[in-house]
């Protein structure tokens, strides 16, 4: 009979990045009891890695901006697969959420008249990203953390959830273990908010930390919730490519926002060669116009480096494949060229991009004020996730909510840079609010001891297997390599079929992995458990990608390279079937509201 530490909360929030913290704060404001679980120490979540800024139509820098333009930009970027209600709420509410951060202590960079400064970013028509140099994510998480610790929130640090608990159809809580001692914790909760981030560790080249093993996606899927848009994985165009040990680490889009350009080994700005039709009217005609745009000239249009991430990433892959790449298989990203434009370029770069300067200096011996960086695409974000109601963020399982990267809908087929931090705030807040409301209406759920015991027994299995079995790291490593190769940035039917076969074999191996040592802070054991989630989400991504026989946003099919309007009418949903099989269905997108239709037309 396993032993548990028992905790009871009205609302249990799983994940303490931007979305989780914001949800917990909102639920605490509503007066319900709140538990907040995080896999790492508080304040270390992946939100710290966000660099460029938080998108909100404050119109501090360009007074032509407003929520309607932001809405239209988000829909265009998402290729109209977005949950348009979420895109609307996001654009309307992001400015308030940003101002609220300032009231809680965030010190954003300022305009000359002392207001919050905003910068240009890919796919945003006007300078829209409130930022703090290139460490906006750190500033945001620290603000939320330092606000949250004074709220009545029970924080459970270094705790991993292995399964959600249900009482019939509704959510009843979650079961996890504390990483430090390996003791199991049973959380009874009337509502659960998933805020677990993404799935980047399913791929070998990634900007994501070890935490990004698709936990929330898999927890929700296993609990019967529908996932949507899982074929859309964002490969950020600029990750480091050298040295090998840092491959994948993010190089912020802010470099391009500040005037950085992408060139191939011949010194050519190749992005000018292929500008997509739907962005042609918004893109600079020549280099000079592009430069003027980055310097705030309102009459200029943006340089092609600031096209959406999916497009830029594919253009880089093309250069490399056709032999025009940099020596280590990327292209050059150059900000040092602005020395020819600005007399104080060196200081300017260090001020605007301090952590990029630091990162390249320390990890690659490169002074970005003097020479170009080598960059290439890196797995960065998953647009897909738990299908939720646009207003409340509740999933198809009563009492189960999702916010931030683990939720789906806002970004459609491709996310705009800067829309992630605002997503966390807007929908973290909404999830917390509606989870608290939901919990207030519920009686305490019944926690089924047998259900919990079975979960614990399964979680402990890796200790009981033959000790000469394979360890979890090799399986994880092979999975990442396979996904990168077969379900990566360029996809084909035959390769994805091979991926499904490979996943079967990897699942077999995963079921046999054994770990040594005891339960106290044992990364081998932790990896063995995380691996189960990675395998689940990998298969979901592959199946969704197979179903979408077209190219759109983050999903590119070599065998179907064109966009197919028929595929623009539905989202792909994946659910767990009654016999444990994956069910793939097509869910029609509800027709756009008339006023929103007009906004899109006006902003074409």
């Amino acid at each position, binding site marked *: 009979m396993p032993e548990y530490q028992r905790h009871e909360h009205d609302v249990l929030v799983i994940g303490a990045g931007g979305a989780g913290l914001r949800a917990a704060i909102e639920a605490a404001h509503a007066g319900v009891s709140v538990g907040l679980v995080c896999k790492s120490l508080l304040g270390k979540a992946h939100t710290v890695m966000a660099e460029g800024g938080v998108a909100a139509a404050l119109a501090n820098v360009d007074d032509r901006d407003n929520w309607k333009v932001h809405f239209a930009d988000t829909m265009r970027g998402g290729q109209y697969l977005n949950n348009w209600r979420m895109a609307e709420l996001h654009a309307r509410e992001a400015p308030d959420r940003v101002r609220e951060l300032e009231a809680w*202590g965030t010190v954003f960079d300022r305009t000359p008249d002392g207001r919050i400064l905003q910068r240009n970013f890919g796919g945003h028509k006007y300078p829209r990203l409130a930022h703090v140099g290139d460490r906006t994510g750190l500033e945001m998480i620290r603000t939320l953390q330092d606000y949250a610790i004074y709220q009545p929130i029970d924080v459970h640090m270094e705790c991993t959830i292995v399964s959600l608990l249900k009482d019939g159809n509704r959510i009843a809580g979650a079961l996890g273990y504390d990483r430090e001692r390996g003791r199991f914790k049973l959380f009874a909760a009337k509502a659960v908010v998933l805020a677990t981030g993404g799935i980047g560790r399913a791929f070998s080249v990634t900007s994501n930390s070890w935490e990004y093993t698709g936990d929330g996606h898999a927890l929700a899927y296993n609990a019967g919730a529908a996932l949507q848009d899982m074929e859309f994985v964002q490969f950020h165009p600029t990750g480091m490519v050298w040295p090998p040990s840092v491959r994948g680490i993010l190089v912020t889009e802010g470099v391009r926002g500040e005037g950085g350009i992408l060139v191939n080994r011949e010194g050519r700005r190749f992005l000018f060669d292929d500008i997509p039709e739907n962005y042609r009217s918004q893109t600079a005609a020549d280099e000079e116009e592009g430069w003027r745009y980055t310097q705030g000239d309102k009459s200029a249009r943006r340089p092609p480096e600031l096209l959406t991430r999916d497009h830029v990433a594919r253009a880089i892959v093309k250069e490399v494949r056709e032999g025009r790449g940099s020596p*280590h298989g990327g292209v050059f990203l150059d900000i040092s060229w602005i020395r020819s434009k600005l007399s104080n370029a060196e200081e300017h770069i260090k001020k605007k991009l301090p952590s990029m300067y630091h990162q390249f200096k320390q990890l690659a011996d490169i002074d970005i004020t003097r020479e170009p960086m080598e960059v290439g695409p890196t797995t960065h974000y998953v647009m897909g996730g738990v299908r939720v109601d646009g207003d409340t963020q509740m999933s198809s399982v009563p009492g189960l909510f999702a916010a931030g990267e683990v939720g789906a809908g806002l970004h459609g087929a491709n996310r705009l840079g800067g829309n992630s931090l605002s997503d966390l705030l807007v929908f973290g807040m909404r999830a917390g609010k509606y989870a608290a409301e939901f919990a207030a209406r519920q009686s305490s759920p019944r926690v089924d001891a047998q259900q919990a015991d079975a979960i614990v027994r399964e979680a402990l299995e890796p200790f009981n297997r033959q000790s000469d079995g394979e360890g979890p790291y090799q399986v994880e490593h092979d999975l990442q390599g396979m996904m990168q190769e077969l379900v990566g940035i360029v996809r084909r039917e035959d390769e994805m079929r091979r991926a499904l076969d490979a996943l079967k074999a990897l699942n077999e191996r995963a079921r046999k992995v054994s770990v040594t040592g005891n339960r106290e802070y044992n990364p081998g054991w932790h990896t063995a458990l995380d691996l189960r989630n990675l395998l689940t989400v990998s298969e979901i991504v592959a199946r969704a990608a197979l179903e979408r026989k077209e190219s759109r946003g983050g999903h590119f099919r070599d065998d179907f390279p064109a966009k197919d309007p028929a595929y623009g009418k539905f989202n792909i949903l994946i659910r767990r079937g009654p016999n444990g099989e994956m069910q793939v269905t097509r869910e029609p997108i509800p027709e756009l509201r008339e006023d929103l239709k007009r906004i899109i037309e006006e902003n074409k």
Partner: protein
Amino acid sequence: MAATESLARNVVESGRRAAERSDTSAGTQERSATFRVWRGTGSSGQFRDYQTKVSEGMVVLDAIHRIQAEDATDLAVRWNCKAGKCGSCSAEINGMPRLMCMTRLSELDLDKAVTVEPMRAFPVVKDLVTDVSSNFRAKKRIRKFTPRPPDAPDGTWRMAQSDADRVQEFRKCIECFLCQDVCHVLRDHHLHEQFVGPRLLVHAAQLEMHPLDILDRTNELKESHGIGYCNITKCCTKVCPEHITITDNAIIPLKERVVDQHYDPLGKLVRLLRGRRSAGTPPEEAQ
């Protein structure tokens, strides 16, 4: 266009340099190195030697991960971003408190064993993982950010970039706690309850110098946060991976405020008469 020409030259030149890097190093050439890693829980433990292959460009955290994957699957280590932004992988490398993810092997003498041990100012949980919870508790004792009323009718504030700059330096802190690790008040004298330590003084400084904050924490800095224990050896500044000038920019100005308020009777009288900024409400009352 002249700019484009010089750019093309720059790119070709840097392509050549990058290729050279790959000729000489590039991760294909491997060598073996020995890492002397602390293994154990609580107060019992010992160093254990691990040999692993290393290549150019690798950082200490890569080597630890390789050892973990090959030899010691239960080797405990905290890490997250692997880019010096989250402050999780703090340890002592050859006796120096550093982030493992930002310490390149090329800086170390690999002909000798590289020692990697947990931060010694904190209790060991297991291997390289320490119990840093005292820092989280200490932060709660510092009164929270409290802004002045908004400057504009729409609920927003105005502040100059120069004022923002001053606290942005402190707000760069990634909470790696290396400064706490190296602080002799904590490390050698174990005064964790009496002295909040450099990290939390940086936190207090960003609050005290925050352009919008209106509280005065001077009294509790002296009375309960123990700022007087710091005798400005500047060890914390030396190890800060974010290059925050902890002592000069954060601690000394706070110390000056304490001196001004507590040991300068004339100044005290003037402040009393002016009635500005209510000094030193105890933390319990303020929350």
